[in-house]
């Protein structure tokens, strides 16, 4: 359980990091919190020749409110998200979700950028970012670009990141005042990835759902937006029949792998239940 040898780089600016990553090529990996990458390196399932540590780049830190959006630097840790009044106020679902990630020690190191960028289908933040309509700022040798979260994930550990690019910040539109939200995560124990999880953000008007987004974690090789399920609930009062239809629509797009968390059928089944529960709890939170 010892990583292979590598060279260590600690650039002080995004530009330097990009320069390093593009010149070192495939054998270089950016190091954020490291709590996905370092265990893989210890198992020698990853053996990069170069690690580019992003901790020295002050510009990658911080949480800012810009009008109707919240911008979060990629190297902001889960612990910092949890400590942020701005997040608690504007994006309470992000607070709720961060608290369900791993354990306290991991949350001190684990970053939101690492969580969304490495493409691990077990991570919680990607589906949440899709649900919130977040976009990622990617900076690389050819400049900067914005990619919406829903177009970022291409497969397990495959993302829209081009060689030499790093994800530098996340921009999240603040949901409407009075919105309801819930992240329902079924896991075996603290520290586990979700057996299945569902994120819901919705608004209600006159007792009916006015808008709704539903994201799904760890039930497919990428995080999913359950758009059909969300469409089905809009305009309803979330009556039992609608909830059932929505859950079925969400289950229909799930394709989890069988693992120690359970067989495929179970993971899909509880995925549907997470959707139902998240919808119900979110609706109850609307004001």
């Amino acid at each position: 359980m010892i990583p292979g040898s590598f060279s260590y780089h600690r650039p002080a600016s995004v530009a330097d990091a990009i320069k390093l990553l593009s010149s070192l090529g495939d054998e270089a990996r950016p190091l954020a919190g490291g709590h996905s990458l370092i265990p893989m390196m210890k198992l020698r399932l990853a053996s990069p020749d170069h690690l580019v540590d992003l901790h020295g780049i002050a510009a990658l830190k911080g949480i800012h409110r810009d009008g109707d959006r919240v911008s979060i630097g990629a190297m902001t840790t889960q612990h910092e998200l949890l400590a942020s009044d701005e997040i608690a106020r504007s994006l309470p679902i992000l607070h709720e979700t961060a608290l369900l990630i791993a354990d306290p020690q991991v949350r001190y190191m684990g970053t939101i950028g690492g969580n969304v960028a490495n493409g691990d289908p077990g991570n919680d933040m990607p589906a949440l970012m899709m649900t919130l309509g977040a976009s990622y700022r990617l900076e690389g040798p050819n400049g900067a670009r914005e990619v919406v979260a829903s177009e970022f994930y291409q497969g397990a550990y495959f993302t829209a990141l081009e060689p030499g690019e790093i994800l530098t910040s996340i921009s999240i539109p603040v949901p409407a005042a009075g919105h309801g939200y819930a992240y329902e995560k079924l896991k075996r124990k603290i520290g586990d990835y979700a057996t299945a999880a569902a994120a819901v953000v919705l608004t209600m008007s006159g007792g009916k759902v006015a808008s709704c987004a539903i994201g799904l974690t760890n039930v497919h090789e990428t995080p999913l937006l359950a758009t059909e399920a969300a469409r089905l609930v809009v305009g309803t009062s979330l009556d039992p029949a609608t909830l059932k239809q929505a859950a079925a629509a969400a289950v229909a797009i799930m394709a989890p792998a069988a693992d120690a968390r359970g067989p495929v059928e179970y993971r899909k089944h509880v995925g549907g239940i997470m959707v139902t529960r998240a919808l119900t709890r979110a609706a109850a939170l609307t004001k």
Partner: protein
Amino acid sequence: MAKTHVTMKVNGAEVEGLVEPRTLLVHFIRENLQLTGTHIGCETTHCGACTVDLDGMSVKSCTIFAVQAEGASITTIEGVANADGTLSALQEGFRMMHGLQCGFCTPGMILRAQRLLQENPSPTEAEIRMGISGNICRCTGYQNIVKAIQYAAAKINGVQYQEAAE
């Protein structure tokens, strides 16, 4: 592989060493610094036996490279006792409440609890349980660890510890 020079402050003392970039912080602490109170229990970032305090954060030192701790201020279990050599409130709490058996998880557990109490001086039982959920103990079943932390919180807050009725 070329070695890198690192300096950091450990338990208040400036230390330095030559390490490979891949040297894990836990090995630097245990082998270079000979501070063997920090333990290794799982190596997959689950058990928390290697927990140390790094710049105000509880971290699992098996999942961080020594080079990443350049310039950091670290506290290990060897730096927890009071300046006069007496046991800290947490160390005393673990002893008084029988919060340890084999002792292998204890250093990580105490370091984690110390940071928890600094962030939340009067945690509820549920908050304590959540707060130490990155640390596995195989011997105690946690119940007396919870009491140990409650004992320490009471002592730090200057109130009498009242054991909850069973």
